[in-house]
């Protein structure tokens, strides 16, 4: 079957892998984390904090914030905007963990180490609530 690569006559550079919750996901250099996950058949990677509803890509261009992930301990990144890099470790989760330090305690960055309100301000995000 003719696919997108054939359509644009792509000669992709060698793929690398990122880790998504421990599983390998292939990436063509330049692809976003969200596109790589969606392309690998991962459709949902977060559950909402009230209803536990599954979420993945929706707007695809950084508007809706449904696709938030933690990458190498940096929380609340929009997967659809974040270009994947070799060695990336992506962790997913519920709203209770995405956006806080809870998933990142082993990372050792300022963001991840922030434990109480005072310290975690560096890792907090504004512009969302």
């Amino acid at each position, binding site marked *: 079957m003719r696919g997108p690569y054939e359509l644009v006559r792509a000669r992709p550079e060698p793929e690398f892998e990122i880790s998504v919750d421990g599983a390998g996901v292939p990436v063509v250099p330049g692809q976003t984390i969200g596109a790589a996950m969606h392309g690998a058949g991962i459709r949902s990677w977060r559950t909402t904090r009230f209803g536990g509803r599954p979420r993945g890509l929706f*707007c695809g261009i950084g508007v809706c914030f*449904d696709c938030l992930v933690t990458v190498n301990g940096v929380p609340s990144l929009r997967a659809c*905007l974040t270009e994947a890099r070799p060695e990336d470790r992506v962790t997913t989760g519920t709203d209770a963990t995405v956006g806080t330090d809870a998933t990142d305690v082993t990372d050792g960055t300022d963001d991840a180490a922030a434990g109480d309100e005072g310290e975690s301000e560096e890792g907090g995000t504004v512009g969302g609530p």
Partner: protein
Amino acid sequence: MTRIHDLAVVGAGPAGVAGALTAALAGLDVVLLDGAARPGGQYFRRPAEGFNAARPGALHTSGHGLDGFTRRWELLGERAEVLLRHRVWAAGRTGGTITLHCLEGDREERPRTVTARALLIATGAYDRPLPFPGWDLPGVLTAGAAQALLKGDLVLAGRRIVVAGTGPFLLPVAAGLADAGARVLGVYEANSGFGLAAHPLLAAGRAGEALGYAARLARHRIPYRGRRAVVAAHGRDALTHVTVATLDDGWRPVATRTVECDTLAVGYGFVPQLDLPVQLGCATRRDHDGGAVVAVDAGMRTSVPGVYAAGESTGVGGAALAEVEGRLAGRAAAADLGRPTAPAGPVSPDPALTRRRERLAAFARALQEAYPVRPGWQDWLHDDTLVCRCEEVPLSAVREAQAMGAADARSVKLLARPGMGWCQGRICGYAISCLAGEDPAPARRPIAHPIRLGALATRADPHPPGPQDEPAPHGEPGLHGKPDPQDDLDPHGEPDPHRKDES
């Protein structure tokens, strides 16, 4: 020392690149910023370099248009400072100088400020979704998302795809997905009941384009059905099927059937991205569809001196109109800053450009009139249908707020919290306004992109951006006056659903 440019341009799409190049050719010192890694905006989005795509134009309605854009982009690189991967989160104006607060990078972000004597806002638009039962199931994407995945990442949004919504944008989305190997099961257009034969593109004299789509849809055996809409999406953890309804004139369902699919690409027009112009205090006006757009004069000047806007932010009209508006803005900026446009540059005479803008704007208006959103979509909702995805606010909560006396969208928002989550109402704002019975107002968002607090702390400019005399509306994250960490800077990035809003 901070360099003060003549003109800063935000947005590397058709409008921004045309405006920046026009101004640079006229002798201005121009800086262009865009949050993305590659130029093009949404329309001219292209595959990542790692694909080495020999024919990126194959993904575009007009490969010729992409070539022209690419030429302008290359010319611009020789004549202006180009800052990709720079997200502008706030703009302020003090004493004739514009300051843009940016974050460089897409994760470990570095704060940066850019200053200029004038600003061209060319920030484009995003899909306008309507809520319906199941619209938050994984597998339901905006039409723009399906196209962005394909154009930028060469990823097919799904294998068996339904395309639905309203507007001519559905046609390139469906044709592009099918060309790239997806099985497109149908295009369901909520408006036109006559199919492609009576498509407004034909009436407006763009027969070639409409027939091109018709041929591509026919080649892939994709049915195009008017007066149809996806009124519900179903599945446990991901989409498995949708309910397609036949609609009456007002979009109320009169008959339904089920279509099995793994992906739905849906969109009901576009919302202009107005965060920066609203921050700067630019006057807005109602577009033909009732939505807010930036008010501009013939030179694309906004109501704020030194601030120009072009492209979708002044009214959704597509790439060709955006490019013309960008050129008009670039010329006006050059003239206003005292550099008459050099006749040697690739700039048509002003009257011809203006006529071209008028013609394209008239076409855009015809399309908006042909593809309105009709109120019957509200009948698609059930009590438990989420209208706000971020805060998981069901329709019933909106109706309860109204029963308690919330008479407008703002009061509904304060009582029931739709639009108070991560996306700040970008996704649900239109629907909430409709449910509250009013035209959507331009949302005031003092921060155009979420930023980490460290970036705020290291911001070079000690003064809050934006007009000083307009406090942020109650209940929105505000940088105006003294930010209250309890209100706006929640360290967990999560709102407390039970928090009262009278702080």
